């Protein structure tokens, strides 16, 4: 629809002039208001604090509630303790943890929580998270590390750690019949950026061959806009725009909701958009 539809043609060149001036005043893609920038280490620290608070809300029955993959809440916290222990091994140079399974390697830590007072599990997790924070305090966040089959910069690992802790916090909240939580905007901003940057990898994992140029718009605090090329086909790429809630998209990437649950606003090739969203769920760790 143009201005002429209103019976008043716009002067020639005005559209280009106005859009150019706007994009000079604020770059495309940047959210407004933008949350304060924080480091990945700070994001992990904040997420760990939020998780610790949630654990403090649980009563005895809630600690024993079934949560995930046959684990009760206490066992799931044990799984996270095991992940932190593997991260410690990674950061202190243990090469074996590079190829360790995310689930199998952490199962002993989950198992050993059985029968313990929940307060001890909570305290053990706090110590494990604090030790991670201590280990990365002076580390080069650009340095490459390898753990659980991933080789990636330390900063990205910390964002993924924050992501997993938040996701499991919500698994626990669901098991304990508590309302869900969302990361605060600065942390969420790092999570959405990470998820967007990993979308091409997700497409490869999902064997998405069709080339798609995705204009991804994630709304709400911590959101933003990204233009991402996915798929490996030599054919002409399709253009799709996907608009979704930032927290919802992170839940999708964590394989906690489906694209239908996400209820995105899509323009362009609907089938390819659906395929891209389905591919995003492969970012979830096993």
């Amino acid at each position: 629809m143009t201005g002429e539809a209103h019976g008043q043609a716009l002067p020639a060149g005005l559209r280009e002039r106005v859009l150019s001036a706007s994009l000079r005043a604020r770059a495309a893609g940047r959210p407004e208001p933008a949350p304060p920038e924080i480091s990945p280490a700070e994001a992990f620290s904040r997420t760990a604090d939020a998780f610790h608070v949630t654990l403090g809300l649980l009563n005895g029955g809630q600690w024993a509630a079934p949560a995930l993959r046959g684990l009760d809440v206490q066992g799931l916290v044990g799984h996270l303790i095991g992940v932190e222990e593997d991260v410690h091994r990674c950061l202190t140079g243990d090469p074996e943890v590079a190829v360790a399974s995310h689930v199998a390697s952490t199962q002993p830590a989950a198992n050993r929580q059985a029968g313990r007072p929940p307060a001890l599990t909570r305290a053990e997790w706090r110590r494990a998270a604090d030790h991670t924070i201590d280990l990365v305090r002076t580390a080069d966040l650009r340095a490459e590390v390898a753990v659980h089959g991933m080789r990636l910069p330390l900063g990205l690992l910390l964002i993924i750690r924050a992501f997993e802790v938040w996701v499991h916090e919500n698994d626990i909240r669901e098991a304990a019949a508590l309302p869900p939580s969302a990361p605060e905007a600065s942390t969420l901003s790092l999570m959405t950026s990470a998820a967007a940057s990993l979308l091409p990898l997700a497409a490869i994992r999902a064997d998405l061959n069709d080339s798609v140029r995705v204009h991804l718009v994630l709304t709400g605090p911590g959101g933003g806009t990204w233009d991402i090329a996915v798929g490996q086909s030599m054919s002409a790429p399709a253009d799709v725009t996907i608009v979704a809630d930032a927290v919802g998209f992170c839940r999708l990437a964590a394989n906690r909701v489906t694209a239908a649950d996400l209820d995105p606003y899509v323009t362009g090739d609907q089938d390819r958009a659906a395929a891209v969203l389905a591919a995003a769920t492969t970012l979830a760790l096993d």
Partner: protein
Amino acid sequence: MSSERAAPCPPAGRPVSVRAVEDSDALLAARLAAGDEFALAEVFDRFAADVYRAALVVLRNDAAAQDIVQEVFVELWRHPDRYDPALGTFPAYLIVIARRRAVDVVRSEVRRLVRQDLSCRTAAAESSPSPSEEVIAAHVADSVRAAVRLLPDGQRRIVELAYFGGLTYKEAAEVAGIPEGTAKSRVRLALAKLEEILDASLLESS
């Protein structure tokens, strides 16, 4: 990006259903806040003509109205959170901003003309106005003359003598048979009243 899931999702790579939701002002606002330049273009294509027309009604000058359109959309893009969909529609919000900006331009022009007249009624202007400024000035002058007719008699008389008669305050005071201080005081009151009348008439006309 995290792991295990009790309720399984569709296998990766298998298309899942995507429900496209209806477009809305709230969605457009959220997209603008997220930095979606496509949303900015959409908003422009849908509402720029209304914004342009609103500015043109007040300013009666194409170039000045275009400047207002640019200001309105740049402001929207820089501060999308200032629009609250709960308080009104997008076009209504944009048109209100356009009118305010246009009225500000006219008000500023009124002040410029008055200042110029007060400081040096018989001297040439400090700088030559641009063609668009001349058009606005002519429009403003018409509006000012109409507004002067609405002033109380005492104020109108002194304004007519001082402004349209080209007299100094001292001369105007002598013709009106009042002290010079009273003449100046009446002019100040008249100018304040004129601004009120002009604001009201400009908003009404827009």
